[in-house]
């Protein structure tokens, strides 16, 4: 398939993009078109660029990204559901010389683990938190999450989410930004190349804040779940642009670094 390109004489062949060194060859178990894989790779690229593979410890949620320990060639702890920010706190306090990140979905961060998430932020723990928001529970079959949009159909809201019955989409990043503890809170997306580059910069900044001892960084990233949204991967990208971003606008919310 690429025989023709490889046969031409070439010099200075440079790798533009591919698997980061801090990641394993194990295939992702994510569904086709899921944005988790893009975000995982960006974190791997950031770890490579900062040269922190040997001192980074990840904490993984219960959810589709539960197998981070298979995919990253770093140490990963997989705590009980929702306790990721709390366990990351413990690791960081016991080993302040390590770079510790929490990777959490919206079910984990904004529902089951809200208590842990809020207090880690309020304490201004010196950790980096990645909060992946796909507006529902992905792994268990697409149930409503606190982040589900009004009118969005899920397996537990077949008629669409109604505010009267289920409340409103919870805006964790805006909520936590009202606290005095956090240093950096931003919302990003990874549905096209400019957004992916911006998300990568935010991820690197989150790690740098921790390395420089500046405190708590939260990088929320809007993610597509084509399977549970009932859309193909390209349509799912359009849904983020048209619907999800209207409720969860992109950009830095606080930057006190």
């Amino acid at each position, binding site marked *: 398939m690429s025989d023709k390109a490889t046969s031409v*004489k070439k010099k200075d062949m*440079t790798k533009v*993009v591919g698997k980061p060194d801090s990641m394993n060859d194990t295939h*992702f178990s994510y569904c086709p078109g899921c944005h988790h*894989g*893009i975000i995982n790779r960006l974190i791997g690229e950031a770890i490579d660029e900062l040269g922190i593979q040997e001192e980074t410890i990840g904490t993984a949620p219960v959810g589709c990204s539960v197998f981070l320990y298979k995919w990253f060639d770093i140490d990963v702890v997989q705590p009980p559901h929702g306790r990721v920010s709390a366990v990351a706190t413990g690791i960081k306090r016991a080993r302040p010389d390590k770079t510790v990140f929490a990777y959490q979905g919206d079910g984990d961060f904004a529902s089951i683990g809200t208590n842990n998430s809020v207090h880690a932020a309020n304490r201004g723990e010196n950790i980096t938190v990645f909060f992946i928001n796909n507006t529902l529970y992905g792994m268990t079959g697409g149930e409503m999450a606190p982040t589900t949009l009004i009118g969005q159909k899920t397996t537990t809201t077949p008629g669409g989410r109604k505010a009267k019955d289920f409340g409103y989409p919870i805006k964790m990043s805006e909520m936590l930004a009202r606290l005095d503890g956090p240093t950096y809170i931003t919302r990003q997306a990874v549905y096209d190349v400019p957004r992916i580059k911006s998300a990568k910069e935010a991820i690197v900044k989150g790690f740098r804040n921790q390395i420089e001892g500046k405190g708590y960084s939260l990088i929320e990233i809007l993610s597509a779940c084509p399977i549970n949204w009932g859309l193909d991967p390209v349509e799912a990208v359009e849904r983020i642009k048209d619907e999800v971003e209207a409720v969860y606008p992109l950009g830095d919310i606080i930057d006190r670094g």
Partner: protein
Amino acid sequence: MLRGQVDVDRERCKGCGLCINACPKDVLDFSGEFNSDGYNYVEFADPDDCVGCGFCGIVCPDMALTVYRFEEEGVA
């Protein structure tokens, strides 16, 4: 002249098509063949037009694409 090469890991590819959608030069296409997981993987169908921008690999959710860029000699 700046050229590119896309190596497709057929077993990693899940045929989501995000790379085909992102490519500004339309050099990628579905192969019409299936890997061991049953996915219709993508192929580097039109190498002559590739400029190695890397957009396909950047949007790929499965690290299935490795993109290289090189200078081709003797071509204006």
